[in-house]
Structures are given as C-alpha cells and as structure tokens.
C-alpha cells in the first residue's frame, strides 16, 4: 500500500468485502484524515481564543484599531492589509485548482505554470505575514501607565477622569524616541520646548519629536486625542511602566497578555503551515517540471498537495473572521 498510487486497483487495496468504499487511493484518503485532525487542532486553538475572550472581564482590543497600517504608507487603513493577505491566499488557492485541473488532462506545461504561480503566491503571503509580525512586535508608539488619577479634556471637548494604572498611548514619532530614552540611551534626552516637552536624539542622524498629543482608549473603543496642557499633565503623571509593541511578556494593545500570545500562536502556527506548504509545493513543482508525474501517467500528487494547500487557505478564512473581524 505504501509508495506512489498505482493506476490499476490492486487486490491489496480492496477492503474485506472486495470493495474500495471511498473510491480514492490510500494516499488521498490519508491526506483527508490528516486534514481532519489538523482542523481539530485549529478548531481547538480558535475555540480557546473564544473562551479566553468570553471569560475576560477587561475590554478586548478591536481588530480594526490594532491592524490598520500599510507598508510604506502613512495614515490609517483598518483591516486593509489583512484583507489583502486573505486575497493573496485565495488567489494562490485558485492557481492550485488550475494546476490540479491541468493534471487531469495530463497537460504538463500548464501544471508547471500554475504550480509556479502557487509557489509565488505562498512566498508573497509569507512575506506579508513577516511584515505583519514585525509591525505587531514593534507597535505604533507604545503606551505608559499613570501613577495617579488625572482629569483631562480631550480635543473634542469631552471630560475624562483617568484612574491610576490606566494606559495612555503616544504617537509613533514620540514613541519611537521614547523607547531608547526609557532604556537609558545616552544620545536621547528629554528637554523643555516652547509647547511642552520634546525628545531629542543626537549622533549621526539627529532628530527630535515634540509631545503633540496623547491618545486614550486607542485599541478598545472611542479613541480620543488629548493635546497641549492636558497632554503634559498626563505625561507628568507617567509611571515607570512603559510598553512598546508586543513580546512574550508584555504588550501595548491590551491589558491581557493572552491577546498577544494568541496572535503569536494562532498566526504563527498557521504561518508554519504555509511555510511547509510552500516547501512541499516547491518540491512537487520541481518533480512536475522534471516529468516525474508524466512518466507515472497521473498527477495525483498535485491533487494531494493541493488538498493541503486549500486547507491552509480554509484555516486563514476562519482566522480572519474570528481573530481580526469579530
């Protein structure tokens, strides 16, 4: 039963009753069984995420507000980048369907072409996910916690009574310099300016960032900006507790560290599937190119790896909805 599937059904693959009930080869059936077990793992992970989120008493971050950056672009584009990643994966799934279809016509040239596009799509997705991770880890400004209760008025005139221990968020220019300043980098210093305070970096690339405004509720709901005197009041009430981006111990997005941990684990586990999928696709691409399947007279290997590749797309559809959208 091992090895490649043969075209003629041998007596060995028939079941006890002299039938092959599923009418598929051993390899394809095992691929389906593997996918069912793998889907249970992902189902367990997403359910665990739902459980932790449902049982959380503190507000949970909103996907549109955490994931709203685009590479090389300023400004806010909620969920656009994740949607683009979803689209890339769907398209690379489509090119795989085309490769399988061409295989059924023993059209080697088309199989190789479509598999090539599929491998390329996989690499683009992996690159996008690397950018997404990097952005999540670096964060967009960072936050600090208050040491005492402060009352401020926001730019749109609302009054807020902030409590000791609440988080206040910096913009990314100020936060970018605040991180080395907190770490005691000698080239960065905090100085008084005409409007309040600013951070100044000396050295090879001297530049400075003014404390223009601070943000409240950045990742939760109803984000508001505070500037001028009130921003300075918040800055002066800062504690030692700063957060920049996310790591395994701390994150700026949520009070719950489990939020960052689930992001790393779920998207990381999925990304590892994409990575191994791209590698296997590449191997099958080379085998198809060298005519291995042409000599075997069927392209079932493309169909089997195709099942795995569609599965990776399927999982991402669920991750997109349950991690990012809801």
């Amino acid at each position: 039963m091992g090895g490649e599937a043969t075209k003629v059904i041998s007596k060995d693959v028939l079941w006890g009753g002299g039938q092959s009930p599923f009418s598929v080869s051993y390899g394809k059936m095992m691929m389906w069984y593997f996918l069912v077990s793998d889907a249970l793992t992902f189902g367990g992970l997403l359910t665990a995420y739902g459980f932790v989120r449902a049982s959380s008493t503190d507000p949970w971050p909103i996907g549109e507000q955490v994931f709203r950056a685009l590479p090389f672009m300023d400004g806010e584009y909620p969920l656009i980048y994740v949607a683009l990643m979803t689209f890339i994966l769907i398209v690379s799934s489509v090119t795989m369907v085309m490769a399988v279809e061409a295989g059924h016509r023993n059209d080697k040239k088309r199989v190789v072409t479509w598999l090539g596009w599929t491998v390329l799509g996989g690499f683009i997705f992996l690159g996008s996910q690397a950018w997404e991770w990097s952005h999540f880890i670096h964060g967009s400004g960072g936050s600090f916690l208050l040491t005492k209760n402060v009352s401020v008025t926001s730019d749109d005139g609302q009054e807020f009574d902030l409590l000791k221990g609440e988080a206040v968020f910096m913009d990314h220019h100020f936060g970018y310099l605040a991180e080395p300043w907190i770490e005691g980098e000698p080239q960065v210093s905090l100085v008084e300016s005409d409007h309040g305070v600013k951070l100044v970096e000396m050295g090879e690339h001297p530049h400075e960032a003014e404390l223009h405004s601070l943000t409240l509720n950045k990742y939760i709901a109803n984000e508001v900006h505070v500037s001028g005197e009130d921003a300075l009041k918040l800055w002066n009430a800062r504690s030692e507790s700063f957060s920049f981006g996310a790591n395994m111990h701390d994150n700026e997005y949520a009070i719950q560290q489990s939020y960052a941990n689930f992001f790393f684990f779920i998207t990381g586990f999925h990304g590892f599937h994409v990575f191994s999928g791209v590698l296997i696709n590449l191997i099958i691409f080379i085998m198809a190119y060298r005519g291995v399947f042409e000599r075997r007279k069927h392209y079932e290997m493309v169909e089997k790896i195709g099942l795995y590749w569609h599965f990776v797309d399927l999982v991402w559809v669920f991750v997109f909805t349950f991690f990012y959208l809801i």
Partner: protein
Amino acid sequence: MERDDLIVNDNYALNAHHSEEEGAKIRRNTWKVTAILTVLTSLEVAMGIYFKRSDSFSWVMIKWTFIVLTLVKAAYIVLVFMHLGDERSNLKKAVLAPYILFVGYLLFIAITEGFGHMNLSNEHH
C-alpha cells in the same frame, strides 16, 4: 437508497481524466467561485470598517452575519476547491461528520464555560 460505495466502472480517482471541454467548464466554475470568495471577503471588510462595536442587538446580528459569510466561504473552498463535493458520499461523511460533531461539542462547552466564568468573576467584583 442507491448504494454509492461500489466501484462499478473503475471510477478510481487516478483514472479521473477529463477532456478539454470538461476542463473548460471546470475552469469557468473555478473563476466564478473565485469571484464569489472575493466579493464575500470585501463585504466582510467593508462591514468590519463601517459598523462600530457596541452592546446592541444589531452588533450581535452583524457578528452572526460574519459567521454565516465565513461558513459560506468555507463551504465553497471545501466542496469546490478541495472537490469534496464530487467525492463519494461515504468519504464526505467520514470527513465532515466527526469534525462537525467534535467542534460542535467543543464550542458548546467552551462558550458555556467561558460566559459562566465571566459571570462568576462579575459577581465577585
């Protein structure tokens, strides 16, 4: 009921070759499903950006809309792209039944316990 678990005319997956005309039909269907998946994803993103989260009933309905749209997309991927829809119904059941059973149970337990835990913590605060 007609039995579909017998190999009557050697309809084995490895022999499932098709002609150019059948291939053209399959390709047309694939592009159609691609268009559907793209439109549904765009709709989800637009809804995600447009509707603000709240405790209201309408937000609950939007969440359910997301879940339904996701299940529709998943069905297209599994039944058309992974062509489980064209397999013997035995294989279909062997793949789908255990999964739906286990995940349904897991979801029921986790959601019940998750909200129970939250209500308990609220009572203590």
